[in-house]
């Protein structure tokens, strides 16, 4: 194994919550499927069954995605701060590992590996919960939740989400890591206060909202950038949505050509890279609190 692999193993040793949190969360969902009240109306048509399977997969996925977002945020904010706080940074720095490798290993864990762990946990949970529900509510749903094509579409959706969030949220991740490498205490406060202050200053002195709009768009704009959300192709009768306005397949939902050709995506990524370079520079200089 090379240095990079060891650095990544190191992160999993230190942050056992990376897999324990999704495991516990999945277990809770399975318990809910086992003992919770199930009141599913009887599905009649093939279309309804298909939709139920899709909704089930998406609900499980979204729940995991929300937990993951909170955890990843915390992880990135803590990752360059924890070892400065307990001074173990002096031990890590006594080894022939460059600061760039260290910072990048943490970025990859935060933006790719943690999402992949949640992806696996969501898949496992959905599988087990679908099995339980199919037995408990077999009169209503039968084998509706067992649709390989829906399952495959969910895999596509996960991979697409992981790639697009990694790119879209790169500037946020870079900012969190920069604060993590810099702050002497109260990382959470330092992560929030400066952007908030900039927003307020602009509002008070110029009466404009440019910074606020840019930040809000970056924080909340990912679904609009990555999916066919508000696009006209969603209108009824266009053939890509069903009677409830839900896209028929994942391929109609995702918008890779729009996302990957948007200047917004790549400007954000460039800002993210700049912030990460700055975090590496701080890591070189700041050894202790």
């Amino acid at each position, binding site marked *: *194994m090379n*240095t990079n*692999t*060891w*650095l990544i*193993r*190191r992160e999993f*040793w*230190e942050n056992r919550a990376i897999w324990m949190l999704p495991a516990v969360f999945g277990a809770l969902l399975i318990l809910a499927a086992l003992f919770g009240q199930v009141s599913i109306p009887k599905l009649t048509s093939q279309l309804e069954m298909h939709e139920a399977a899709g909704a089930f997969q998406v609900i499980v996925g979204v729940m995991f995605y929300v937990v993951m977002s909170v955890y990843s945020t915390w992880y990135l904010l803590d990752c360059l701060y924890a*070892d400065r706080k*307990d*001074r*173990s*940074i*002096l*031990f890590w*720095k*006594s*080894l*022939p*590992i*460059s*600061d760039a490798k260290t910072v990048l290993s943490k970025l990859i864990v935060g933006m790719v590996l943690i999402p992949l762990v949640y992806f696996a946990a969501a898949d496992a949970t959905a599988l087990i919960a679908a099995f339980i529900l199919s037995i408990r509510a077999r009169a209503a749903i039968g084998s509706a939740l067992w649709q390989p094509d829906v399952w495959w579409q969910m895999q596509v959706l996960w991979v697409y989400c992981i790639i697009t969030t990694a790119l879209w949220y790169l500037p946020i991740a870079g900012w969190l890591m920069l604060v993590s490498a810099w702050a002497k205490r109260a990382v959470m406060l330092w992560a929030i206060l400066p952007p908030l202050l900039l927003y307020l200053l602009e509002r008070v002195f110029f009466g404009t909202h440019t910074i606020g709009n840019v930040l809000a768009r970056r924080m909340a704009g990912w679904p609009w950038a990555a999916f066919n959300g508000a696009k006209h192709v969603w209108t009824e009768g266009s053939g890509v949505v069903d009677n409830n306005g839900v896209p028929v397949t994942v391929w109609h939902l995702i918008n890779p050509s729009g996302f990957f050709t948007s200047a917004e995506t790549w400007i954000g990524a460039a800002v993210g890279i700049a912030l990460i370079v700055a975090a590496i520079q701080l890591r*070189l*200089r700041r*050894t202790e609190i």
Partner: protein
Amino acid sequence: MAPLIEARELTKKYGAHVALDRANLNVEAGRIVGLIGPNGAGKTSALRAILGLTHYEGQLTVLGREPFRDRTALMNDCCFIADVAVLPSWLRVDQAIDFVAGVHPRFRRDRATAFLAKTQISGKRRMRELSKGMKTQVHLALTMAIDAKLLVLDEPTLGLDILARRAFYDALVNDYMDETRTILITTHQVEEVENLLTDIIFIDKGRIVLDTSLEDVATRFAAVAVKADRLDAARAEKPFYERQILGKVVLYFESVDAGKLAAFGELHTPSVSDLFVAKLSGGAA
């Protein structure tokens, strides 16, 4: 041969505070050097610069490299223990060995495990479950298993009891030191390292006050317990420090002919700790 560590006009400022003020120092291979100074003298700043942990002004070469720019490469040949408390609390002993073995090309796992086998520490323990002394032993096992040319120890025994301290230094001298290695130790407790050093560097207020080998100390410095009637004559030779013990006046001289001094009273070579006190308080007087 070029010195292992060579600093010219090494300066480190923190805002208006000057931690290192144009310090010059040389460390030759195969020596055990004590970097000695009171708290806040600049010892730690000097070490941080030497280890590439901080930016600095002036010229500094360690093992032929510029530490801040080349820290990663430098750490192949140089290792350090900065403080006993620095192993992270979540790390297990066996994980620590696996990790260092994985990333350090000069780490010898058999040596680390042999060292730990002599202790009561099991591989499954996490650092937070270990006492301070045990943590030091783990850190020492990891560090001594690295075939490094330079070992830097910054206050390595801080917070340890007397037994653990003795064990630490015994292990260092008996199991680790040989002619291919060089050790640089900082401490403000001089008595503790006095007997193992070959060279001393005194640092005070960011400046190097003395940089010499212990062999040179014997020829260069003398302490004389001066007889009462010779006091004025002795003072005329410009002692750099004067001290009264049990009614006797002891004068400290640098580079004054021993034959001349012997006439004033009982002559001896000052210990490192006496010399340290003499040099640092003498300079202020």
